[in-house]
């Protein structure tokens, strides 16, 4: 495993609500100066700690790289706690300490039919994945969301890839239908590649379906993290052998069979 990374203080370029209803639902696109990152592997992440945190909150916050260009690092952020609420209220010109690109990203197999399974804000890494994929016609997207679709970068992605489908989970009663859609999708991609990012129960479902169909699947975990660089051992996940592996350096993307996600599920 190569340990690398760059840590810099950079300026916030913009913070904008994602779509017309983004502000109401707490969905934001944050653009920062590229801290000097070379192109990253989609699915890698960054740690961000704005100067506005001061001494509290203490931890930086981890975010998947949503888009990386030589000039800009773009993050897709949902304001849902102390840290993200501060982040989503930053003004251009304010600074943040950013380090990365961190961890192991998604597998890239250009000629293999690949489905991106995204849940909510978990769509973020797939924006970069789709934008940098050499054969985007081989990509499909199945996107489950709770907020209005316009709050997510779905439409922009849908135009550039083979197939995209969104499922609006408005009440918990909608869940079985979404799981049925995932089941059908996983069956169709059993010979391909499935990549998933979203809430843990969603990833557990993906792991279960991957086993059911013998599909090759990767999941991106969102474990609570302090340092992001392998220093604290706080973000661990139990692997298939029952040992703890670090989500920050060995993940956040894992093949489902490397983990024990189905244990107790």
């Amino acid at each position, binding site marked *: 495993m190569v340990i690398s990374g760059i*840590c810099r203080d950079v300026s916030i370029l913009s913070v904008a609500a994602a779509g017309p209803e983004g502000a109401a639902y707490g969905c934001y696109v944050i653009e920062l100066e590229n801290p000097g990152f070379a192109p990253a592997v989609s699915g890698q992440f960054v740690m961000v700690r704005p100067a506005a945190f001061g001494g509290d*909150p*203490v931890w*930086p916050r981890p975010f998947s790289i949503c888009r990386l260009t030589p000039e800009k690092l773009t993050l897709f952020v949902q304001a849902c706690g102390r840290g993200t609420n501060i982040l989503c209220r930053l003004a251009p010109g304010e600074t943040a300490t950013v380090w990365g690109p961190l961890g192991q990203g998604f597998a890239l197999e250009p000629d293999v039919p690949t489905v991106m399974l995204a849940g909510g804000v978990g769509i973020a890494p797939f924006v970069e994945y789709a934008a940098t994929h050499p054969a985007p016609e081989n990509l499909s997207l199945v996107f489950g969301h709770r907020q209005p679709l316009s709050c997510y970068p779905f439409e922009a992605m849908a135009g550039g890839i083979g197939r995209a489908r969104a499922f609006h989970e408005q009440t918990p009663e909608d869940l079985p239908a979404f799981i049925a859609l995932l089941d059908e999708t996983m069956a169709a991609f059993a010979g391909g590649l499935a990549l998933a990012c979203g809430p843990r129960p969603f990833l557990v479902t993906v792991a279960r379906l991957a086993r059911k169909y013998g599909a090759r699947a990767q999941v991106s975990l969102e474990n609570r993290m302090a340092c992001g660089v*392998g*220093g604290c051992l706080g973000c661990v996940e*139990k692997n298939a052998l029952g040992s703890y592996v670090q989500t920050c350096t060995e993940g956040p993307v894992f093949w489902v069979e490397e983990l024990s996600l189905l244990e107790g599920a």
Partner: protein
Amino acid sequence: MSVDTTVRLSGLELKNPVMTASGTFGYGLEFAPYGDLRELGGIVVKGLSLAPRPGNPMPRIAETPGGMLNAIGLQNCGVEVFLRDKLPRLPVAATPVVANLYACDAGEFAELAGVLAGAPGVAALEVNISCPNVKAGGIAFGQDPSMAERLTEAVKKRAGNTPVWVKLSPNVTDIVAIARAAVLGGADALTCINTLTGMSVDIRTRKPRLANVVGGLSGPAIKPVALRCVWQVCRAVSVPVIGVGGISSAEDVLEFLLVGAHAVQIGTANFMRPDMAFRIAARLPRLMEELGIGSLDAYRGSLVLPS
């Protein structure tokens, strides 16, 4: 003006008093991309045990106001892997690398001390008699003066010429009593303090935020407690004291030196940004210059108390 950041401590010369705290800096290598390890005063690595330890179930960490709780449970690669795979990659000639020891009883501590003290490149041993996150041993040693003394003695006997530092717990009625006991046992220096035992719960799920239920509180929130402990211990013992607890700036470093510490360790602040310890080490001489502090030896313990 020229400033001298050198610190002499238990037979070691540190180029500056800024070290990293065990458990917050991995094995050092994780942070190498973010700064030059040789610029640090010292590196204290993740607590080592004789055999590898898997650590506690997740979740292991929780954020708290101005700090965090952890219950990692001393997950580590074991002393053998450390000596074989990690230590040779650290710049031991340029900066002291200190091994932090954890064991379940005095015999194991002594065995571990024997293995590490004989290893070239290990500058000192820091004995963790105070980890709150493991069920056997750990904090019990740190809470009982006679056990702290016996344990220190046992480690000291096997440590040869390698200095032995004892890391104290703040979770005691009288930290001075434990400090004196460790010194009686032969400690060459004392590290103050380990984390404060704490807890965090979620009122909606009605669950504790840590799988271990309780964990150790660290971060800026505990700095006043650490400072008080260091001050008390410095007044009571003659061996050097290493301050740790909530330090996140060069100003904080000087606060600990002012109350008597010889050196400090940066802990949770390493999580605030991975280059934190390097930045503090680089900033310290400039701050000394601003404040007209020529040498740390002269500044140490110069706190002016109300008459």
